[in-house]
């Protein structure tokens, strides 16, 4: 089969008049998604799990959309509200929060940095800040991606290209990353050989994509004050030997070493110093690109990639967005979308891609729609008969809060300052310092499914024996004193009320209320009666701060706390 037949359907879809239409209300989109999901469940006779409890939904939506837990106060308001549309309104509130942009900026930054971890660890903070701002102002994914691909100079969006740097920007790395993350295809396989399953992409396709980036350079420059920074620019020509040279002592390329504009050489797969052919720039599946001798070649590529009619772009983003919420894409793996790997729910993917284009590629429209589906609102607890379902969306997969994000949640609920995890230890000369906690806990690789628990025993020991004991004590002391919430905002408020040297008598909450607040702060719910009595028995035997210390430790160590339920 010719590789491009499969994309014709998608192109036809894009010609659909609905594409010109404005986006539909999220509730309407959600209903259409649910119709296909429910039909598939009925056909397969797999019973869906019941709807999630309010608490489960609150915790899930808060972590998925903002990466943060609701405050105890917010949790109480939500749990006690009788508004029939309170879940939809919660989703809107979370999507409109500035934390939404930060959460998805962190998601993409991590993907970029971890996909190419050979590039070292470039400082991603300015990039995250830029991207969060873009998402929060409603910038389209097309606009954002084009900015990352065509960046010039020292702008924060340069991080994307810098994560694809070896000795210089490596066009082959850029091609692999663009394929996987923006087009949803494992184009990278074709770097060395045809894609083994689809046969769709040949080496010429991979290197033809790389060719657009062959003259992109990352150069260290000094400004007038001597401040160093790395700037992105386009060189005039494509030197023949663009691949990182194993031997840095070799002479720089001579004038005769330059290739025609928009052409790269294809290296031998087993010996990077040998060349086996040339590849002119091609738009994947859409033929050769006509590139001039001067100017950036990245602009034409970005324009082609992010056009509404591009067969890859919208579907890849829709599929990936879905995977953030449901822990797997409609097509899985998320970067392997091709004709022989069909979506689990083809209609849903079409709907999402169409809505995305209609909404000017604003991911917030997808988030609002997806989070309003009944499928998203189901419990993660199995129901009899759906225990083994992994594809039909009969229940919500439990996602893991991964190490560094977990530390942020500790900071939020225990009121500990950020970056206070590692005690300053003195070690003898030649002896190692213990691995920094953030590094030790950062066990997730590139693009693991969110429902994979990636930590092991070293991480468990660090958390239970070293991290938590140092972090629960202060919060426990405050709860014992005031019954107050284990919440940073409240702690700050208390501090400001107290002022230096003044002792403000605070009326301690009754113990049951204090326990309830601890549960609300850590687990976004009230304890069940059975839990409340188990906790009461525990606290009876350990009066004062010690008992609350133990309770905080146990809840922060619990499987529920480290889960997006």
């Amino acid at each position: 089969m010719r590789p491009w037949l499969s994309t014709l359907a998608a192109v036809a879809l894009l010609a659909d008049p609905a594409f010109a239409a404005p986006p539909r209300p999220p509730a309407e989109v959600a209903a259409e998604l649910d119709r296909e999901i429910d039909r598939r469940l009925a056909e397969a006779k797999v019973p869906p799990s019941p709807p999630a409890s309010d608490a489960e939904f609150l915790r899930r939506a808060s972590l998925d959309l903002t990466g943060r837990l609701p405050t105890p106060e917010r949790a109480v308001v939500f749990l006690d509200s009788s508004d029939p549309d309170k879940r939809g309104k919660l989703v809107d509130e979370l999507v409109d929060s500035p934390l939404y942009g930060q959460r998805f900026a962190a998601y993409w930054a991590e993907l970029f940095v971890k996909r190419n971890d050979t590039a070292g660890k470039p400082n991603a903070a300015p990039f995250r800040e830029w991207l969060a701002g873009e998402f929060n102002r409603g910038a389209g994914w097309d606009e954002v991606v084009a900015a990352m691909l065509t960046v010039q100079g020292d702008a924060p969006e340069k991080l994307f290209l810098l994560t694809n740097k070896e000795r210089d920007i490596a066009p082959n790395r850029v091609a692999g990353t663009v394929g996987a993350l923006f087009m949803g295809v494992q184009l990278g396989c074709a770097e060395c050989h045809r894609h083994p399953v689809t046969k769709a992409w040949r080496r010429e396709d991979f290197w033809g994509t790389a060719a657009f980036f062959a003259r992109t350079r990352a150069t260290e420059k000094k400004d007038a004050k001597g401040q160093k920074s790395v700037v992105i620019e386009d060189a005039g020509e494509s030197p023949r030997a663009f691949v990182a040279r194993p031997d840095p002592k070799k002479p720089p390329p001579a004038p005769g070493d330059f290739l025609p504009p928009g052409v790269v050489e294809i290296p031998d797969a087993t010996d990077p110093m040998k060349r086996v052919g040339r590849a002119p720039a091609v738009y994947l599946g859409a033929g050769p690109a006509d590139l001039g001798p001067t100017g950036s070649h990245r602009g034409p590529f970005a324009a082609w990639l992010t056009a509404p009619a591009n067969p890859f772009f919208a579907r890849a983003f829709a599929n990936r967005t879905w995977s953030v919420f449901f822990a797997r894409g409609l097509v899985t793996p998320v970067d392997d979308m091709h004709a022989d790997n069909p979506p689990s729910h083809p209609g849903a993917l079409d709907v999402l891609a169409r809505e995305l284009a209609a909404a000017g590629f604003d991911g917030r429209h997808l988030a609002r729609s997806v989070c309003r589906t009944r499928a998203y609102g189901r419990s993660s607890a199995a129901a009899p008969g759906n225990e083994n379902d992994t594809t039909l969306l009969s229940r919500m997969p439990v996602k893991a809060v991964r190490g560094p994000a977990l530390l942020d949640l500790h900071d939020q609920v225990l009121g500990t300052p950020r970056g206070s995890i590692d005690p300053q230890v003195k070690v003898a000369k030649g002896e190692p310092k213990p691995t920094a906690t953030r590094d030790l806990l950062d066990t997730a690789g590139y693009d693991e499914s969110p429902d994979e628990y990636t930590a092991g025993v070293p991480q468990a020991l660090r958390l239970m024996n070293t991290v938590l004991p140092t972090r629960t004590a202060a919060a426990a002391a405050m709860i014992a004193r005031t019954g107050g919430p284990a919440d940073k905002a409240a702690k700050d408020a208390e501090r400001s009320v107290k002022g230096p040297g003044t002792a403000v008598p605070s009326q301690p909450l009754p113990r049951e209320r204090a326990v309830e607040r601890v549960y609300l702060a850590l687990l976004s719910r009230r304890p069940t009666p059975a839990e409340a009595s188990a906790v009461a028995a525990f606290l009876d035997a350990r009066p004062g701060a010690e008992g609350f210390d133990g309770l905080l430790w146990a809840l922060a160590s619990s499987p529920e706390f480290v889960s997006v339920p």
Partner: protein
Amino acid sequence: MAPHLSRRSMLAASAATFAPWFRSLAAAAAPAKAKPRACILLWMPGGPTQHDTFDPGPGSCFGSIPSSVPGLVVGEHLPLMAGQMHHLALLRTMDTKDATHDSAVFTLSSGYKKGAGGVRHPHLGAAVAFEFADPRAELPSYTCLSVKGSDVCTPGYLGAKYAPFVTRPGQGVPDLAPTAGLTPERLADQTGLLERLSREFVAPRMGSAAAAQATTVDAAKRLMRSTKLTAFDLSKEADAAHELYGRTDFGRQCLQARRLVEAGVPFVQVACSPEEANGPGRSGWDTHTETAKTLKDVLLPALDRPMAALLSDLKDRGLLDTTLVVWMGEFGRGKQGVGHNSKNWTAALAGCGVKGGVALGSSAKPDGYRPIGVPDLFATIFSALGVDPAKEHMLKGDRPMSIVDGGRNARPVTDALA
């Protein structure tokens, strides 16, 4: 000359050093082969010279001495190792095409170029732990006893279950004891509460990330209670053992490695990187100035006693038949130990599955044996461990990934295998 030895330890040392000639005869007569179950990687960061270790010749700074294998000579500053050469198979035509530290360290640790095919490849230690780890084991299946080289000790696609414990000899498992005023009694008490409060959430979510977290916490608690933790306690070793291995950093690492393997740990990595060799910040064997002096005064003595002691001690305890010992760095060196050299350098194997007393090729006469690439070396290591080098893991998206780069195309060095 060997450092000063007390009379008692000299006896212990010499018994261990010379007796194996007799014992190897007995071993040859033994019928059934024992099942491999462990691997110790003696990592030589910076790239050790082959010329003054196991491949003396025109490139040597020093002379050579005869060894326990007739006709096989070793560098003159390895007098104790000379007595152990009947255990070693020397691969002297290593050809690894990369003489840059960072990238070569990863390649020689995992058998793949870093990130090849967009995949996070596991370190040899994680791969061996995957093959040999007992799911009920209490001790960590993959332990790294030196920080040097530990940054590449990644479990890669095998996942955090096979991540290394990085510690130092005698220091035990990191984070094993509760801190900040949390006593073991209170911890036990709190874990009781934790278990009670976890049940309702986990029960209807079996097989989920939440259940995996609960299982991991249980494994951590099992490790904390394990009686096998004494394997980390070097004070349990007699003085004679400390003398045999030498009271040096690398000596303690090797002694610790033996204790761990004895207790059932499948993979231990140790590194010989005496700081006085090149000062802080530089890897031990990366000698670029005063090479001969550093080799003679620091590096070769640092290597000789611990490595010889480890081999003889493993042999004496009957562990060498089930334990593979691998000696290597990221590459070798040029003549007189100067400069990086990724061609015709030496890696050495000993123990299970290995034919001892074998030297294949030499840097002086490289045509004497075929070039041994990284995949060939890893195919040899896995073969010695009884693991099919063509074995594949199935990654996400049904993508098969062979444990050795190239799978069946890699050629194990059968001449080094028993």
